[in-house]
């Protein structure tokens, strides 16, 4: 394993410590519960937004805490949902009179932890509500009964509910907006290489030199199938087709297009992929109104990309365009 790591057991804690040291004015780190929160949370007149999940998907979610996005994030260990107790402690710390919205990607462990925490918080009189995100089209609902996975689409949910909360929307309204974004967001990803969890020390799966995993999950879960490596144009075409045909996105639709790197793919390749996807959408009559190119929801050091489309309306255009300040920045 070639990584910047000391004891793998300290990986998450040391990452969070670095994050806190780099953002002393805006973030607070609570080591006992692995939690990162806005220094100024909770705010009386604002619904608080919390997201948690396993670590290894950075900048989701610990680096998305800040004005206009999350009030707190409670990460678990790498690829493991946080303990319910950590979620509960997080909710308590950012509990606002206007309530707390819990954003959860749809995985069994995360669901259970957040449902338990929601119950505990409600028992304390905190108005907490949970919203599940499940934008990944690669796994079909019909076949497996646990539902779809939540992947990079969670960025758009965070952004929209963060913006709405900042403007003073109440919990019902914020929940409605988040639900709506999730309902019009679709993602599919693919891996060129496997990722290596620090504690495991070796790649999570074997992928031959000339094969890719189409529809891969952000924890290295297998996707739709193994395929031969092809040109970027062909592989991007498969992602775009899978995503557009799912909602479906149709000619005349205005969309936000995100090309998300999975951790090991450089930004130059991401822009190349973006250009291909943009043109393929244009051929279908779909107009890209907002673009997102970079890393939003990664899978450690996995080389690969995911493509997310969100169907826009005026409300979402407005919310996505709202200002936000989070640690991920270049200046």
């Amino acid at each position, binding site marked *: 394993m070639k990584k910047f790591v000391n004891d793998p*057991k300290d990986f998450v804690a040391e990452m969070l410590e670095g994050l806190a040291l780099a953002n002393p004015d805006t973030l607070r780190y609570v080591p006992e519960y692995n939690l990162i929160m806005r220094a100024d949370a909770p705010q009386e007149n604002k619904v608080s937004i919390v997201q948690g999940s*396993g670590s290894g998907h950075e900048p989701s979610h610990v680096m998305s805490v800040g004005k206009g996005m999350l009030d707190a994030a409670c990460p*678990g*260990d*790498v*690829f*493991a*949902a*946080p*303990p*319910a*107790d*950590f979620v509960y402690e997080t909710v308590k710390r950012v509990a606002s009179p206007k309530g707390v919205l819990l954003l959860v990607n749809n*995985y*069994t*462990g995360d669901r*259970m*932890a957040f449902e*338990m925490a929601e119950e505990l918080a409600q028992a304390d009189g905190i108005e907490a509500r949970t919203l599940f995100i499940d934008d990944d089209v690669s*796994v079909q609902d019909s*076949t*497996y*009964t*646990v539902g779809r*996975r939540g992947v990079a689409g969670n960025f758009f949910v965070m952004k929209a509910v963060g913006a709405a909360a900042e403007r003073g929307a109440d919990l019902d309204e914020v929940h409605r907006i988040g639900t709506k974004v999730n309902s019009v967001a679709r993602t599919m990803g693919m891996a060129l290489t496997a990722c290596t*969890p620090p*504690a*495991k020390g070796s790649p*999570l*799966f074997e992928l031959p030199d000339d094969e890719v995993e189409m529809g891969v*999950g952000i*924890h*290295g*879960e*297998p996707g739709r199938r193994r395929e031969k490596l092809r040109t970027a144009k062909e592989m991007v075409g498969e992602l775009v087709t899978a995503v557009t045909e799912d909602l479906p996105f149709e000619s005349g639709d205005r969309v936000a297009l995100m090309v998300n790197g999975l951790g090991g793919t450089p930004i130059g390749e991401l822009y190349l992929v973006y250009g291909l996807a943009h043109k393929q959408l244009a051929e279908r009559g779909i107009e890209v109104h907002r673009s997102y190119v970079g890393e939003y929801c990664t899978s450690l050091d996995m080389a690969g990309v995911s493509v997310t489309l969100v169907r826009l309306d005026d409300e979402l255009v407005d919310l996505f365009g709202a200002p936000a300040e989070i640690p991920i920045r270049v200046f």
Partner: protein
Amino acid sequence: MSSPSTAGSDLEFVVRTIARTAVDNEKQFGDLDAVAGDGDFGYSLARGFEIVLADWETFDRGSPSDFLKRVAMVISKRVGGTSGPLWGTAFLRAAGAVKERPDLAGLSGQDAVAMLRAAAEGIKVRGRSDLGDKTLLDALIPMTDAVEKELGAGGGASGAAVARVAATSARAAAEATTPMQAMRGRQSYTGERSIGSPDPGAVAVAVMAERIADTWESRG
């Protein structure tokens, strides 16, 4: 991990053996989970049960129920992933099944069956899962059935014999998960690719039961 040396009840022996097995098999359990899951099962269990061992001497032993609740709390609080809520719930429900019993050393074979049944029910509810979904339930439930049958056979089966029956049945049941397709947990996303390897949770139950049987006679 310092191993607590106090002689104790069979209940303490069983719990401590489960904990030690989880810690000692971190890598094996993780590798099993990497086949069709995400490789963290061993890590999650080990992190929780190593706290159980570290805090071992401090646990309330006023009653079997209080003792099991303390174990459940450590796991729920400190273990993430899917395993934290599931195993925490299992121990909590087991505590509930013996809440009338006053004494750690006073549990019967029937109590053991009741605890195992309650644990399995808790997992089902928490995980929205059932027998046949290719989870640890597919080892836990057949094992409980076999133990109950052995006890029911009359003739006062010895603890050692019951432990051996548990181990043998759990192992067979864990192996029988190999041809199954996972319907719950992260493995289920892989669809048919989960076929061909045993469920890590079920194997963990078998390995724990085997270690209990293997060390039964030398227990404190």
